[in-house]
């Protein structure tokens, strides 16, 4: 079975641009979460979606948004990119929101120049 897949794997953007990152969860998983991992730090929670509804939001500005589609795949959008948005963006899927293992994708490495 395929694991969590994220695209693209690497991305270079210019300050002020917009970016869309994509995530396909494991088949049967209805919950998708997004995390930002800055170099040398642990992942920080951005969003969680379950059954297409937002179930949680971390401490990130409104430039960050996400959505989940009927097939449970998800997109993370970031507007007006800043240099500080450069990070590894990780997507995790799980069966439910509570107490079940989160499976992580390989991540998308975003570099803002």
């Amino acid at each position: 079975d395929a694991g969590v897949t994220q695209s693209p794997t690497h991305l270079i953007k210019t300050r002020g641009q917009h970016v869309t990152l994509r995530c396909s969860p494991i088949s049967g998983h209805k919950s998708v979460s997004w995390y930002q991992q800055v170099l040398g730090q642990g992942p920080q929670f951005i969003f969680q979606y379950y059954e297409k509804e937002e179930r949680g939001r971390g401490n990130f500005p409104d430039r960050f948004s996400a959505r989940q589609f009927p097939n449970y795949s998800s997109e993370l959008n970031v507007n007006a990119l800043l240099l500080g948005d450069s990070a590894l963006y990780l997507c995790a899927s799980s069966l439910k929101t509570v107490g079940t293992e989160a499976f992580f994708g390989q991540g998308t490495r975003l570099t803002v120049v």
Partner: protein
Amino acid sequence: AQSVTQLDSQVPVFEEAPVELRCNYSSSVSVYLFWYVQYPNQGLQLLLKYLSGSTLVKGINGFEAEFNKSQTSFHLRKPSVHISDTAEYFCAVSDPGPGGSQGNLIFGKGTKLSVKP
């Protein structure tokens, strides 16, 4: 807000020696606890988790962790490490969000384990 403290940013150890990676969390309420491993340029892989029950949790690759509620700790141990265990290890706690959801993970800053021959 909950927080996770990993007390050592780097742990060097010789092959076949035992290792302990320390983790403390801030919450006094019931939480779920996790240890993840991250190899270079890869995502996170779950090593083990504590949800309830026995305080000694066994995971993959010979790792185990002990949940200590009174000390709010969840230290990771392995009796004999291999070169292939060289990686970064993250302790995480689930955050009970709105409506009882506990899916949000709060991570520590990570501990880099370096196993030397």
